[in-house]
């Protein structure tokens, strides 16, 4: 039987990010293959968000090597506190699609599909300033998923999520078997969310990648 070739999507070696003379993120070695769902788990303040931002291309001042072999247009990043643009949920859902040249009608249909999958179809016309924390996260996730990225970077996507929200995300992740997903969390993740866990924290607490 011929073994399946794994394509590396993210490769990090000796990454170090310093701010004001202090090391805020240190990663000796980390890699992610295509289609993997990897959870970066660690306590608050250990640099998980910084690592994700480096992968997203939002942090460019670092030492070491970080190669992401997915084009920026094929990446999507959802912040720990996602920002939703003024307007309603549907407008936000369409944003990335319109940026990619989709027609209004096409973008609307695609965005609605994901908004409904995330369980907030009834809120499509709702202004974003009226959403709860969990609804905002779902709207931001729908916006990222609507562009069908090859690489999805999620910073603490489960915060403020109720059981129903969690179940919804688990079922969506199961559908996205071809999408590479890297998500951070302060607590251990179930295997339905991440097949592999990268423990993040001080060097001595890391078991291995």
């Amino acid at each position, binding site marked *: 039987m011929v073994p399946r070739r794994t394509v590396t999507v993210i490769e990090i070696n000796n990454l170090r990010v310093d701010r004001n003379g202090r090391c805020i993120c240190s990663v000796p070695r980390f890699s992610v293959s295509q289609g993997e769902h990897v959870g970066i788990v660690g306590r608050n303040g250990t640099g998980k968000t910084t690592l994700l931002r480096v992968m997203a291309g*939002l942090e460019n001042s670092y030492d070491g090597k970080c190669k992401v072999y997915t084009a920026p247009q094929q990446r*999507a990043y959802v*912040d720990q506190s996602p*920002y939703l643009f*003024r307007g309603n949920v549907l407008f936000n859902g369409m944003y990335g699609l319109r*940026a*990619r040249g989709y027609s209004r009608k096409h973008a609307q249909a695609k965005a609605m599909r994901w908004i409904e999958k995330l369980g907030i179809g009834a809120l499509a016309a709702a202004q974003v300033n009226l959403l709860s924390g969990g609804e905002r996260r779902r709207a931001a996730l729908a*916006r*990222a998923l609507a*562009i069908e990225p090859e690489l999805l970077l999620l910073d603490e996507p489960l915060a403020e999520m109720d059981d129903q929200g969690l179940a919804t995300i688990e079922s969506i992740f199961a559908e996205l078997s071809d999408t590479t997903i890297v998500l951070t969390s302060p607590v251990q993740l179930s295997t339905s969310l991440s097949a592999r866990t990268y423990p993040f924290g001080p060097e001595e607490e890391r078991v291995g990648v």
Partner: protein
Amino acid sequence: MELIWEGLTEAYWLLITLDPLVMGAALRTLWISTLAVALATAFGLPAGTVLGRVRFPGRQLVVMACRAGMAVPTVFIGIIGYLLMSRRGPLGPLELLYTPWAIVAGEFCLALPIILSITQGTIKALDRRVGETAWTLGAGLLRRWRTYISEARVGVVLAVLAAFARCVTELGIAMMVGGNMPDRTRTLATATAMETGKGEFGRGMAMGIILLMVALLVTILIVSLTRENRD
């Protein structure tokens, strides 16, 4: 007190009967100021966005210059405009002096630093996640900038309203480069000054009331927009 009461009464009748002189000055003021502010917005909005988002050497100096420009007296702008547009000035061949276009040009110079400065401040104060989110969703430069302006729309509208209020009520520019010519360059402010000087308090008061109403309307809009933003 009797003088004020008589003036107010006459002003009331002039407004109710749509006195041609008063209405002519009012309409002229409105179109001149609207055009000047529209042109200043077309330049000031993109420039203010650049100043708010792009770092370049000397940016702070440019910002300071714009802020200083907000406080320049209108009569000073008028003097400079006069020197430029007079027959011996570099713009003399354009024959703009004592035309409405000269006032438009002067009020453009008045409105531009106001729109530039307020837009710059508003855009700079935007949450850093606006640009990051737009970029990570694949928005190109133009779409990102449209997003900045959309997110800062309340501040941008406030900038335009503030500039409009300043232009409508200004006297120095209209007097210096417009010349207060009847049916040509007479604005509400110049007409008010002239009519009051002639002893025509009623007409002066009528025009002053229109100016006051414009200022009040702009203030109400600013307050309601600010309240909406807080909500």
